[in-house]
């Protein structure tokens, strides 16, 4: 069930209505049932994987707590705890590997064998990728580690824990919630509250704006050009690549914001997943603002355990490459994703190495570090690096990505910026103009966020009529200008595939 489907438009009000109507003690069960139904709408059989991951991590939590409380000696306790964590990780990653990476592994193996002229072809396995498997697996494993570290106590109520893993607003595309934040809130179901409803509704509208008005409109252009990149050259590919950066941001942050809004209406505060990432002044900063829940997960459960930046420069750079390489693999079972991840790690390493040189240059050229122009330069150069990496993310393969970059650089068709040719790539002039205005609105909203201005709070401070008018106008705008309805294939959110 997609957030931008009719099913969800019916499903959600029913869930919310009944959630607040039934006695408080039944609300967890109701939300759990709704969450499982939500997941089963996609593929009923694969709910067993969700259940399996839930049971494994639930049991591992209980065992970890039992190990911690036993009267065994410290070393033995630690060993048993590590065994529990290892078992939980092994079982979860096994499922993840089987359903997401097995064919990638087979394909890679076949390629290696082919290069070695060994005529042994391992057949691929016909398995459908379970939607959201990377998200709920990581969320559940995060819980295991949190219990292991003693940051939270194990959840005794299985149903509440199952709800933590399967909470429908963020089940299939995040944010990957931390047990400390979400489990505690699930413990105390909220009462209906006008402010929560208003905030949640505003968030959902903003999310739908990002997805339906911007992401899906931009997708038409990007898909047209990238789908036939051997025909399009130069400016077309540059514009498509610039737009893809916006598309994936709107698509993914749109989902996260709708998830936050839906949860807020249910009285649950999910973590912010994006914080004006394209206003970041370095690639490292970008990753602190982009997909915050995943970046945080890798930081806390991979990068720091690997040694982080505590073991010298070389180890730090190695850890960065490992973390971003794995992050790339998390995003998709293809080498182009790995390259995308590694590139992001590489930019940071280069940035770190060049840092003293950059400081020297700033001093030599008498550049004011806090000046707007300097900030803009850093933001633009960061965007350029991040966007270059996105080419590998969007292209069909690493080879295609290289071809696209080459065709971007070598072709000289700068007149395309001015002669209206861009209106022939799936979006007519009016739609193209609307898209540009939408992007400007997004930029303004992100700038406000960057400056600490919370637009929702600005709206909340207005009179009720103004609040209602804002909501009405926004809803109407999305209904008219959104890409939905007959003739429109409810496009999945890009991050669903992960």
């Amino acid at each position, binding site marked *: 069930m997609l957030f931008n489907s009719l099913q969800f438009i019916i499903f959600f009000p029913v869930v919310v209505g009944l959630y607040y109507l039934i006695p408080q003690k039944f609300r967890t069960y109701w939300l759990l049932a709704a969450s499982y139904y939500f997941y089963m709408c996609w593929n009923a059989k694969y709910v067993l994987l969700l259940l399996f991951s839930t049971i494994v991590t639930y049991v591992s939590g209980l065992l970890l707590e039992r190990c911690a409380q036993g009267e065994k000696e410290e070393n033995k306790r630690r060993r048993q705890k590590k065994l529990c964590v290892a078992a939980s990780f092994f079982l979860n990653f096994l499922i993840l590997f089987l359903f997401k990476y097995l064919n990638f592994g087979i394909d890679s193996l076949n390629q290696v064998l082919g290069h070695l002229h060994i005529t042994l072809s391992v057949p691929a396995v016909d398995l459908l990728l379970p939607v959201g498997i990377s998200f709920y697996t990581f969320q559940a494993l995060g819980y295991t580690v949190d219990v292991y570290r003693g940051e939270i106590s194990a959840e005794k109520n299985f149903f509440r824990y199952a709800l933590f893993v399967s909470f429908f607003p963020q089940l299939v595309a995040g944010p990957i919630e931390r047990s400390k934040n979400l489990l505690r809130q699930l413990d105390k179901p909220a009462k209906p509250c006008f402010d929560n409803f208003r905030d949640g509704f505003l968030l959902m509208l903003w999310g739908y704006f990002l997805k339906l008005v911007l992401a899906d409109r931009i997708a038409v252009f990007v898909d047209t050009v990238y789908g036939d990149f051997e025909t399009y050259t130069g400016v077309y590919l540059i514009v498509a690549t610039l737009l893809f950066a916006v598309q994936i941001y709107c698509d993914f942050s749109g989902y996260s914001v709708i998830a936050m809004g839906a949860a807020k209406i249910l009285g649950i505060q999910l973590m912010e997943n994006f914080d004006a990432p394209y206003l970041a002044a370095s690639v490292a900063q970008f990753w602190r603002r982009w997909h915050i829940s995943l970046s945080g997960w890798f930081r806390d459960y991979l990068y720091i355990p690997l040694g982080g930046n505590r073991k010298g420069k070389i180890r730090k750079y190695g850890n960065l490459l490992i973390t971003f390489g794995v992050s790339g693999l998390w995003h998709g079972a293809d080498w182009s994703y790995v390259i995308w991840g590694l590139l992001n790690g590489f930019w940071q390493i280069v940035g770190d190495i060049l840092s003293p040189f950059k400081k020297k240059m700033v001093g030599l050229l008498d550049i004011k570090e806090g000046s707007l122009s300097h900030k803009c330069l850093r933001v633009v150069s960061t965007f350029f690096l991040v966007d270059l990496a996105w080419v590998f993310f969007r292209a069909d393969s690493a080879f295609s990505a290289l071809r696209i970059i080459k065709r971007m650089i070598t072709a000289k068709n700068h007149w395309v910026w001015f002669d209206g040719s861009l209106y022939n790539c799936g979006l007519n002039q009016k739609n193209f103009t609307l898209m540009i205005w939408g992007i400007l609105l997004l930029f303004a909203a992100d700038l406000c966020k960057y400056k600490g201005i919370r637009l929702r709070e600005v709206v909340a401070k207005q009179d*009720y*009529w103004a609040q*209602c008018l804002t*909501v*009405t106008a926004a809803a109407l705008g999305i209904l*008219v200008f959104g890409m939905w*309805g*007959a003739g429109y294939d409810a496009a999945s959110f890009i991050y669903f595939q992960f």
Partner: protein
Amino acid sequence: MKRSKAGLWVIVMTVIAIALFWNVAYYLENKGAYKMKCDFSEVAEECDVLFLGTSHMLTEVYPLELWHDYGITSYNMAGYAQTMPVTYWTFLYALEHANPKVVVVDCYMIESDEVAIEDGFMHLTMDSIPFSKTKVQAVCDLYDDLDSRIEYLWDFSLYHDRWDELTWKDFATGNENARGALFQIGVSDPDPFVWKEMEAEPIDSVGVDYLRKIMEECRKRDIKVILTYLPFPANESKQKAAAYAAQFAGEYGVDYINFLQMDLVDYRIDCLDADSHLNAAGGHKVTSYIGQYLSENCGLADRRQDGLQNWDQDYEDYQRYKIERLRGQESLQNYLVMMADKSFSLCLFVDGESKIWEYEKYADQVKNLAPEYSFSALDRAVQQGEDYLLLLDHKNGVFVDFCGDEGGEAKTSFGKVVYTQTDTGEKALYLGESDENLLRDRDEEGRKLTVQTVVIDHENGEIVDMQRFRESLLTNK
């Protein structure tokens, strides 16, 4: 207190939002269908006759002409690619508003098992039906999938992205009051057509099933049914269907008019496309025939004295609409199609130097302006390459044509018409008391003019249009 105020505002704004949404949805809607049938509910109660069927019926039977010529009040409920199931549901919707004495159903597609054809056409029909229980039932019957049902019951889901196509017409309030009918203008060479008498073979189709439902509904309501098979260059399978329709009509004991076996239309000049539709010239003939048939066989009263003022008014609007269409034509061929309409009188002049007669359809189209007369002067003009003038006054039944140096005058409903030669040997045409020669030898840029027309509304004697065609641009003025 704070909460109740907030709740109040939410309610107020929800109402405003719905009102806003309603308006936005209206402006975004594709008005094609809506404007064609939007006056139905206003006049439905006055309608004695309903026409049902596909685009054949839609484009060939003009209710306002039936009103003007026979005093019959009717509405054309037909639509593009309307299968019999869609026709059935359209009929049920019509019965919610109308209480007709006669229903004329065209049997084209009676043999079809298709329920709904092509979304674009379906929207033209379904969008014109307001949301109602019948519409819900219709959509649920015609479509199995939820997406289609939503699309037809809530067409905003389809039209919301028309914001980039909006023109001033979407905000204009005027409607095309042709009582549901539509003109089609153009001439095509038809597919070969010969009517073959054949034995009817039984047909078991969805179309037949739904036609039976229409028959049952009419029987229940004591409505007289006339089945038709409107004219077009039908292939053998369609002729078989027409033959079966006769058998079907016999089974129910209702009238059946099979136009395929008549010589009412001349397919060479009355066809819009090769294998399907008639143009407006053909449509006028069909309308006239049906009007005559209804008057003589259905006991329908002439209602022109019943004080139905909006019908007269709408007929005047309809005439204006036709005049606009006439003025908008850019080829002589299409212009002749529009002039083949007895509500217009006309003068047509063809210069003797013109080569238009080399294309024999032009001569036939000129004869088609008044098929009941003999065009002897035209035949001579064609043979001898002489100037030709036709004067046609449908109101008073005046028909005069001149060839070569002939000339003269005639009394018409719009005054005296004089056709003569000037001292310089040029041809001159004078209407009424005016001494202005309406004919020109050359246009403003000095180019030779070969065909000139004067179209007159004989109800008020006004010239409604004058066109001058150059030889080189006979098909593109």
